[in-house]
């Protein structure tokens, strides 16, 4: 970081046409995990955009690769059910808690501890539930996650809750049995109430594998949005831009720390600035 903004401001648009410099620019985008091919085509496009400064041109081009889809959470008339999915350790449980806090002002929130697999995952969510004062529905250890989700809907309906957030176990997308299980959880919920959002949690440190994650999760459970976590680290999260570009799945929230308030709605301008600063 840093080097890039210094580098950019030193050169003029005309100089951008000079190949070696463009290669260096591409390297910077690659370092942000945007991916080599996309980085190179972004640089090519930047050459063609006429703006006051090269930063502006690049900024414009980067923005143009983001999804045009709605970035706010779509709500249902009854309980708005939101499933949170992703690979292991990306920050799903923490994000569920942060989202719950975020939604609390709009009505009652119920959490479903449907990660019945990882040791103490239920307790982790319960601890968050206690901290923010929301009900957490859980089952016995190793119980069927779909049945936990099912119980949680009943609870949410009984409490006339506005939101039901379902935390799920982390799973690697290449494990088809686990991906099928996720589909089953969703179908069980949908028997009772539509699932308004399926949020895929992507860790900002993720490299090119993130594309594969998004693709396969989207196939399994029709992901509607992304929560990009750990943007408080040194990673710039360029993989999310690659995902938006190739799969048209919008980032809806970003996670910027371990505390409950470290969640913000996605801001395209800020994100793009972060990528190239």
């Amino acid at each position, binding site marked *: 970081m840093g080097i890039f903004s210094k580098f950019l401001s030193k050169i003029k648009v005309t100089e951008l046409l000079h190949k070696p410099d463009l290669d260096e620019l591409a390297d910077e985008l690659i370092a942000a995990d945007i991916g080599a091919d996309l980085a190179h085509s972004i640089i090519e496009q930047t050459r063609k955009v006429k703006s006051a400064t090269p930063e502006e041109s690049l900024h414009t081009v980067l923005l143009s690769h983001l999804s045009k889809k709605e970035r706010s959470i779509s709500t249902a008339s009854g309980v708005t059910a939101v499933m949170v999915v992703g690979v292991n350790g990306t920050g799903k449980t923490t994000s569920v808690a942060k989202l719950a806090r975020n939604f609390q002002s709009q009505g009652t929130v119920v959490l479903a501890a449907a990660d019945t697999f990882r040791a*103490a995952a239920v307790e982790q969510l319960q601890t968050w539930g206690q901290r923010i004062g929301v009900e957490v529905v859980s089952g016995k250890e190793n119980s069927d996650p779909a049945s936990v989700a099912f119980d949680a809907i009943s609870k949410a309906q009984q409490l006339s809750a506005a939101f039901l957030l379902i935390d799920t176990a982390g799973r690697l997308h290449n494990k088809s049995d686990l991906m099928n299980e996720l589909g089953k959880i969703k179908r069980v919920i949908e028997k009772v109430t539509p699932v308004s959002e399926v949020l895929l949690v992507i860790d900002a440190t993720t490299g*090119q594998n993130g594309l594969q994650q998004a693709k396969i999760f989207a196939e399994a459970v029709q992901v509607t949005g992304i929560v990009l976590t750990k943007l408080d*680290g040194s*990673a710039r999260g*360029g993989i999310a831009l690659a995902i938006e570009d190739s799969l048209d799945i919008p980032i809806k929230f970003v996670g910027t720390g371990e505390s409950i308030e470290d969640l913000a709605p996605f801001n395209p301008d800020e994100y793009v600035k972060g990528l190239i600063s």
Partner: protein
Amino acid sequence: MFDALSARFAKTFGNLRSKGKISSSDIDSVLDEITSALLEADVAKEVVDLFTERIGAQAAALLPTLQAGSNQAQAIFDVVNSELIKILGSEGRRIRFAKNPPTVIMLAGLQGAGKTTLAAKLAKFYKDQGNTPLLIAADLQRPNAVTQLQVLGEQIGVPVFAPEQGNGSGNAVEVARDGIAFAQSKVHNMVIVDTAGRLGVDDELMDEAIAIRNQIQPHEILFVIDSMIGQSAIATARAFEQGVGFDGLVLTKLDGDARGGAALSITEVLKRPIMFVSTGEKISDFDLFYPERMASRILGLGDVATLAEQAKKALNPETSAKLEEKFARGDDFTLEDFLEQLEAMANMGSMGKLLSMLPGAASMKKQIENFDESEIVRTKAIVQSMTPHERRDVKVLNGTRRARIARGSGRAVSEVNSLVERFSAAQKAMKQMRNGSMPAGMPAAMSGMPAIPASKSAVVHKKKSKSGNPAKRAAEERG
């Protein structure tokens, strides 16, 4: 993991092999291919540049010395392979045990890397080798990280020192210090300290890790890193190196399909060995790190060694003991053994998964996806239609017998013929294995396995033709 990288290498070297004489411009295009493959695999740009520079220089130096007619592509391939192994750590280092126990191992890494699970895996691994590990729960940050470690400790029968429940309160340095004292009093010969995840840029938390380190003076600090990490791997590893410091690396979530280029980056830049790999959510999904395996996986040679191990696990102990005995006696591998192995393989789960570990698997993705699992069922039917005598000695299978078997199994005679042919090849492979030229435990059925339709790009190794018939051989080469 490393899938696409091995696919690209396979393709590049496939192209190279098809050329008679390699020119320096061929080398350039190989280097270009390697560059983009490594970048796609999340290897840091600076490391990619270093790598290709070295390969380029070595290949250029090699070219004039190569005899016309020698396998030049193979020579360049070897350069790439050995350079990869060199970066990944020529010899996999193991834990250094302290002269005065307990040996103290401290874990450090980013949030969500998989430290807590790994702590339990390490404990189980060393417990099984006769050690008496103690786990210390010093992640007081993440809600219920302590509970998680306690549950895991219970599962594996390893005590967990956890005086603080964590969840944001308690002093991790004190917990670690008291834990070591406790271990000494209870004569544990090994201590594994789980710590909170922290970012490289978080000075406060890094200071905590440094304070723990200074307090307990660990013999090994292991930096735990997610194999899915991208280009920030180097900056992060550097921050940990300059902060708490570390002696070795552990690569987690290798059961995914991430290419794991960060492993290359960190070992190259920081010269720290990868010591262990974590390959799944079960406690037993853990292994020592083998640089050659990783390198051959990168290069599209397939992870034959891992495959052999898995096969060994899947074969039931009785069957494999029996096989090993036969082996030792020098008996012939029979169709009965073959059948047993086929059944064992069916138990190992999807054939596709197994095949994906074979040499050149990445470039055969399509064929593997289209692999017809029912082929095993058909093969079984054929074998089951043979008499025990025939199964033990395929040489007795004359035309009449083959026709009878075909009728009995409802298959075509040509299928029976091809099975017998493949089985004979497997038998031969088994003999070679006995002579030590193949990894032990590799089921012979693998080599006599139902044929996968090969395509030209799929051919990674120059296949040795079995056929003396030029027309047939040409057909084989065409795929």
